[in-house]
């Protein structure tokens, strides 16, 4: 009996080691994940460690309310820790795109794990209370607790994160937790009466975590799918951006870095409005330049003009243009436009390309992403438009996609102001694209022009002579309310307007 007592003590102390290791691992997983998803690692780690330690205190406090078969409680908690901690990373990945208040869930999970781990040590000390001398007990329990902590903090960055990843790390320790619980059930079966339910629970949890461990790759994929509502049909990170294509029964959508670029259901509204007001105002356009627009949809519209001989498309990302030249669903969408022999695709930085360019064009279509950062803001600057000017023939027409004049009137009219400040004459207009909302464009010409829109192609789905006229009327709620600065590289005025206006809109 004495030998059995003795080994029982050691089994329990080993359990402390495992629990301490697991506990710290869950805390590190939460901290790392929060840094990944929310940024600012110093902030995330310190708040998570704080909440975790505090919750352990709460757990220790609550431990005095537990009575009855303490061993029974100990195993129950062991299983609970295994379940909560084990699934924590997977849960956090899944809820990140869904929950508005991700932090609430994050801290609840950290708090719950902390409370459960905090319960364990006092509980264990009570179990061993009369079996070991007090000073020996305190010394041993805490020694194992802290060894476990050291172990966890070493293997986490060195082995676990690089080898297993976060989801599998937390599942692995969940399995370990439950394994310990299971072993204790077996070891102390004599002292545990009516432990049948506990045993079944342990087995079920163990199986669940094992399955999740095997399927963890899918969880990660699923979490991205959730962020996009629809089925992801293509997802790839190029050197420059994350390209994601989704589709549902009705439409296909392209996202670059999570920002919607088009929906197949209504992109014609955008691309017809982008291309035709400018192109229809040129007599026999021959050479056209497209900056951005690697999806080939603007090119599709340009190819409606029989006089066009050559289209030069400059897009930064070769992965984009490759995709829209090779995937059959995308080829159907752009009508094989990028495979047309008239089209020359150049994968290069638009600013650098334009600075070195000596060719002149009848039309230039500028279709960049919105000016949401200082980098992209350069492509809407006075210097950029100064380089654009010599690329446009004297009678040529340029058009620039210029974000939403409804959501961001200051941004929209700032682009107008910028173009005018370098000597362009402008014609701003807008239309409604359901998946974007109210959208704006600006036509820019080097000389004032008398006749407009003489050569509008027939058989367009959205534009005709009447809808075209309407686009140039701006109601008051799409006008700028302040005196605007032109966007220059040394003030990046547009990016500041844009951040303010879209920031408010998305809050």
């Amino acid at each position, binding site marked *: 009996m004495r030998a059995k007592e003795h080994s029982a003590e050691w089994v329990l102390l080993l359990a402390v080691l495992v629990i301490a290791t697991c506990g710290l691992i869950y805390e590190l997983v939460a901290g790392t994940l929060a840094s990944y998803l929310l940024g600012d690692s110093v*902030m995330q780690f310190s708040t998570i460690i704080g909440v975790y330690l505090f919750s352990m205190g709460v757990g220790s406090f609550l431990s005095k309310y537990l009575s009855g078969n303490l061993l029974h409680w100990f195993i129950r908690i062991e299983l609970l820790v295994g379940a909560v901690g084990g699934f924590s990373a997977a849960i956090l990945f899944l809820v990140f795109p869904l929950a508005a208040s991700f932090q609430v869930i994050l801290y609840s999970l950290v708090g719950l794990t902390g409370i459960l781990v905090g319960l364990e040590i006092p509980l264990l000390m009570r179990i061993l209370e009369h079996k070991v001398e007090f000073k020996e007990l305190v010394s041993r329990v805490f020694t194992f607790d802290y060894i476990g902590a050291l172990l966890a903090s070493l293997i986490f960055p060195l082995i676990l994160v690089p080898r297993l990843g976060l989801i599998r790390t937390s599942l692995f320790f969940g399995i370990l937790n439950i394994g310990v619980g299971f072993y204790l059930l077996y070891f102390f079966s004599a002292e545990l009466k009516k432990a049948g339910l506990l045993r079944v629970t342990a087995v079920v949890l163990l199986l669940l975590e094992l399955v999740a461990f095997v399927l963890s790759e899918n969880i990660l994929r699923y979490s991205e799918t959730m962020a996009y509502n629809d089925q992801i049909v293509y997802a790839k990170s190029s050197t420059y951006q994350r390209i994601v294509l989704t589709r549902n029964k009705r439409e296909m959508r392209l996202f670059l870095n999570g920002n919607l670029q088009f929906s197949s259901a209504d992109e014609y509204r955008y691309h017809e409005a982008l291309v035709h007001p400018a192109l229809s105002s040129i007599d026999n356009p021959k050479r056209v330049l497209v900056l951005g627009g690697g999806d080939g949809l603007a090119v599709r519209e340009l190819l409606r003009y029989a006089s066009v001989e050559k289209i030069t498309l400059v897009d930064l990302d070769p992965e984009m243009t490759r995709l829209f030249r090779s995937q059959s669903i995308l080829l159907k969408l752009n009508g094989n436009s990028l495979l047309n022999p008239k089209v020359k695709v150049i994968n290069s930085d638009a600013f650098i390309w334009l600075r070195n360019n000596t060719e002149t064009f009848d039309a230039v279509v500028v279709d960049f992403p919105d000016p949401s950062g200082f980098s992209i803001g350069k492509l809407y600057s006075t210097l950029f438009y*100064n380089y654009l000017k010599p690329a446009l023939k004297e009678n040529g027409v340029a058009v620039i996609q210029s974000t939403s004049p409804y959501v961001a009137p200051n941004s929209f009219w700032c682009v107008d102001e910028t173009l005018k400040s370098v000597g362009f004459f402008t014609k701003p207009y807008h239309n409604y694209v359901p998946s974007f909302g109210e959208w704006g464009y600006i036509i820019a010409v080097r000389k004032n022009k008398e006749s407009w829109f003489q050569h509008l192609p027939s058989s367009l789905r959205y534009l005709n002579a009447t809808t075209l006229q309407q686009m140039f009327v701006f109601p008051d709620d799409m006008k700028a309310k302040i005196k605007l600065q032109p966007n220059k*590289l040394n003030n990046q005025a547009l990016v500041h307007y844009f951040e303010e206006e879209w920031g408010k809109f998305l809050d």
Partner: protein
Amino acid sequence: MKRRTFIKLSIAAGSAAAIGLSCKGKRRVKGSVKGASSSIGHLLREQILGEPVSFIKKEVVIVGSGISGLSAARQLHRKGLKDFLMLELEEYAGGNAASGHNEISSFPLGAHYVPIPNPGLQDYLDFLKEEDVITSFDGNGLPVYNEAYLCFDPEERLFINGHWQDGLVPSFGVPETDLKQIAGFLSKMQQFRLEKGSDGKDAFAIPVNNSSTDIQYRKLDEITMKQWMEINGFTSTYLQWYVNYCTRDDFGTCYHECSAWAGIHYFAGRKGVASNATYSDVLTWPEGNGFLVSKLEKAVQQNILTGSLVIGVELKEEKVVVKYLDVAKKEVRAVIAEHCILCVPQFVAARLLKDKNRVEIIKQKFRYTPWMVVNIVTPTLEERSGEVMSWDNVIYNSQSLGYVNATHQLLQQQVPRKNLTYYLPLTSKDPSSARKEASEITHDEWVQLLINDLKIVHPDIEDKMEEVNITLWGHAMAQPLPGMIHGGLRNQLSESIAGKIHFAHTDLAGISIFEEGFYQGINAANKIINYAASV
């Protein structure tokens, strides 16, 4: 398992893990430490180089090809005096404004920007117009600056109280009383900026020698910036940090050592006007002032002889004999010239002239700050909260002046890897001990110092940095200590010797900025041209 065995095992496992950790820990970062060729320069102190093996004749010899030297050369060339030779110790021209480049971009090895020029500096404005830095003049005659060279937004950020704020004047988390003092200080500086003396000159002008000599301004040169601040009740620690940052930034001198006149000049000297910029804007390039070097040296490149250590300059029968060591061939040669311009720091000039009295004066009065400039190659780094990476990135209370992003002025969208240029004036000790100490620090130790400073704002910098190249400037700039600006010594040392040997260097100008070097060079060249015209 026995208790003892278990503990043994745990300890073994723990220490194995610890060893594993430490093995992984220290990664050697690629790079080197380079200094202005001090080991060759120190040959000067030894007198065992022998007699010249060849003599050539030139109208003018220019010693040193920093901004002063290049500017003198360009001026001679423009005025049609083309028979001159410029001798440079290093393998390239540029001095403090030299630059380097790698596959990502160019980057500065020292000076890296110029503010919008003050009005009336006609030669300087002409130079900038010639080189397309000024693209045109508007209807009001104001210069229009090339937008590719005006510093792009976001220009500056300061990491303070755990956050990157916009601009360098402390504001985030700064108490109201300090903010009030800062505002009061800046408005006082603004007042100085606009003030003129009874002689009609600007109180604080560029070049410094164009400033008013009224007594109330001259008196500012008798105390330190710190003393002036205390007298005027500017005691806020945030403000004092900022002013100390500024005097270290421009003059390599702490505010408790810097002349108050020079300290105020930092804030009050700039009066630039432009069609598309203001006096507080700056012009910059990936290679820093290396851009201006390449423009200055364009026309005179064939006159520059690099790898040439000048070892003596003396007057002999109405001529100036300049002896130099061809460093590669280890041969002494001589040039016999009508004139010589010494575009080197005064401690070097005095030794070349072998004038013991001059050497002694300079030893007593001139102090040169050593600087360390580091170029770091790194991919995108983790960021703390607040403003995004700017051109100039400064950390509150750091020993360093922070870093400048050399790729900031690139036009392209994607710059996945960057060159960051980190500046550290070694002002914590007296210059000669700091210099000695710096020369003994290994590359690994510099790297560790850098990591300790920058990991506060980029926690992953240690793992991410790919290359760290260190440039040590032993005598980067002369300090504007009290008395240097208005004490008269500068004028005395600037006097030409026998109308034949002339001096041009920013240490004679009082402060080390581009415009001073530019005008030092032009003025020395003009002396020679006027002399030639009068003969």
